[in-house]
């Protein structure tokens, strides 16, 4: 077990290191002078020189990488050109929108998917099963940003239950802020729930065929109790694995959905930074999101390995 943990940690460190190199290198592809690209052709020569020096463009590339990576390790992501504030500060501020949005959508998708998957497994081959599978097929086929637009059409413009966009901030109380996050979270949650419901159904069906479940049934334990107490807990490992894999889709989805609802989160910050040619923000936010995906995947991997009683194989 310790060997597995060490291996996983080593590969995590290598991936993190490579990811910083990738982000740094790709942004060196900017044709011409990045400072000129960011400030535009009408920039004053002294402003340009100041930015070049701030970005370290007068330094050799290796020094620049080491400076940047060193800053990253200390939590210093540079200063945004557009906002004239440290990128780390902007990120923390925007996380107060993105993190609750991601957590809310994870919660909604899990609350929707587990009962649906369990129900479908219990009604295997019957109407209820087909209905759940139909929902799942529809859910995976609809992109989250289209679901978002449809939700705005129905719940904001027609029924006036939820705002069509914007975020009031947490200062005005939890109620209005959560209210603004419901539709975006739902848009993100539906495709996730569709995938999770299918995985839950399959995992439960697989465990229903296992010996300990059949023994429980033979001993006279009721159908529902077997499902809840024996099949579901065992099915949670594959479900958690898929949930971990979905983190990367959740990050990508949040970038798009935040823009549908003009939510001032990390995704919106990143998107606007491209328009504003604020490469320092792009570099900082992209590397943080990539690190987030890597770390969460590793944690899920480790958690599943710890929960799974079977012998540990070689990680793929």
């Amino acid at each position, binding site marked *: 077990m310790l060997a597995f943990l060490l291996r996983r940690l080593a590969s995590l460190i290598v991936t993190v290191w490579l990811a910083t190199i990738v982000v740094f290198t790709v942004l060196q592809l900017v044709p011409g002078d990045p400072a000129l690209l960011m400030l535009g052709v009408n920039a004053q020569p002294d402003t340009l020189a100041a930015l070049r020096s701030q970005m370290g463009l007068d330094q050799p590339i290796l020094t620049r990488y080491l400076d940047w990576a060193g800053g990253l390790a200390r939590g210093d992501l540079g200063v945004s050109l557009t906002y004239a504030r440290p990128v780390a500060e902007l990120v923390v501020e925007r996380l107060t929108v993105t993190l609750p949005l991601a957590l809310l959508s994870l919660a909604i998708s899990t609350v929707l998917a587990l009962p649906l998957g369990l129900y479908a497994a219990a009604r295997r081959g019957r109407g209820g099963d087909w209905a759940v599978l139909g929902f799942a097929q529809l859910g995976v086929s609809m992109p989250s940003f289209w679901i978002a637009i449809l939700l705005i059409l129905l719940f904001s413009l027609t029924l006036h239950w939820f705002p069509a966009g914007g975020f009031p901030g947490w200062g005005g109380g939890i109620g209005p802020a959560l209210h603004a996050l419901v539709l975006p979270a739902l848009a993100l949650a539906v495709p996730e729930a569709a995938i999770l419901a299918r995985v839950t159904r399959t995992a439960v069906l697989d465990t229903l065929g296992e010996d300990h479940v059949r023994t429980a049934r033979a001993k006279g334990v009721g159908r529902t109790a077997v499902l809840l107490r024996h099949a579901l807990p065992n099915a949670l490992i594959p479900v958690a694995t898929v949930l971990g894999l979905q983190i990367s889709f959740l990050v990508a989805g949040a*970038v798009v959905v935040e823009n549908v609802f003009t939510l001032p989160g990390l995704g919106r910050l990143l998107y606007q930074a491209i328009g504003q040619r604020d490469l320092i923000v792009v570099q900082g936010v992209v590397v943080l999101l990539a690190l987030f*995906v890597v770390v969460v995947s590793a944690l899920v991997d480790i958690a599943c390995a710890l929960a799974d009683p079977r012998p540990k194989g070689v990680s793929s």
Partner: protein
Amino acid sequence: MRRQLPLSLHLGAVLTLLLVAMALLSLLWTPYPAEQVRVIARLKPPSAAHWLGTDHFGRDVLSMIMVGARNSLSVGAAAVGLGLLGGVPLGLLAAGLGRWGDEVVARLGDLVFAFPAVLTAILLTAAVGAGAINVVVALALFNAAVLARVTRGAALAAWRRPFVGAALALGRGPLSVTLVHVLPNIAGIIVVQATVLFAVAIVNEAALSYLGLGIQPPSPSWGKMLGDAQTYLFTAPLQAVFPGVAIALCVMGLTMLGDGLRDWLDPRHRSSGVM
């Protein structure tokens, strides 16, 4: 022995073929030129003249959806094609080379998976400007990583089978064994995965074009159409429906085709409906 084809294979194949046919037809004919602007006919609801109505520039929505199908499928095909070209040889190599090759391919995969395709495309856009090429590159990288992993797993299993051992014992070299015995045996698994990745590519292309980072106007794309429609949700709500239906049908067709193919190739999966 002939096995009955699964229903999802039929449905998926029909849907996909219809969309491909529509995309091909758009090369020869569309009801109106897809980029023709007619401001006097802007935001019209569906009618006999414009079956799906017109957009905010008075362009015919049906024509745009037809050309959009061509654009989406082209981006998807390029992303999957390049992914196959990169990923399959890498996966075969990893399986053939043993521990070291394996480790390198696994770490490369981890690295690619750290960047969701949308993030890679954003990074590329920041560096070199917006365009469909970024989308293709970002999706192809992701696809190559997935396909390398799937190919490696399937090839490792194939290498352990008796007929491969027999071929090796008969003096065949590893390259010839890989091409003649391993690859044909795992081709089915690769095709299934490629079909699913095609569907994922369609969704990602639409999302990036919605953000204005994918296919650039005036060339129509389903994602961009939805982005434009959002501005006119009050006056022309249906414009936010049709392109979305096109995306959903396309993705549904491809995923059902993938599911059906897998069930057909591996009947053990049939009853469980695993994804």
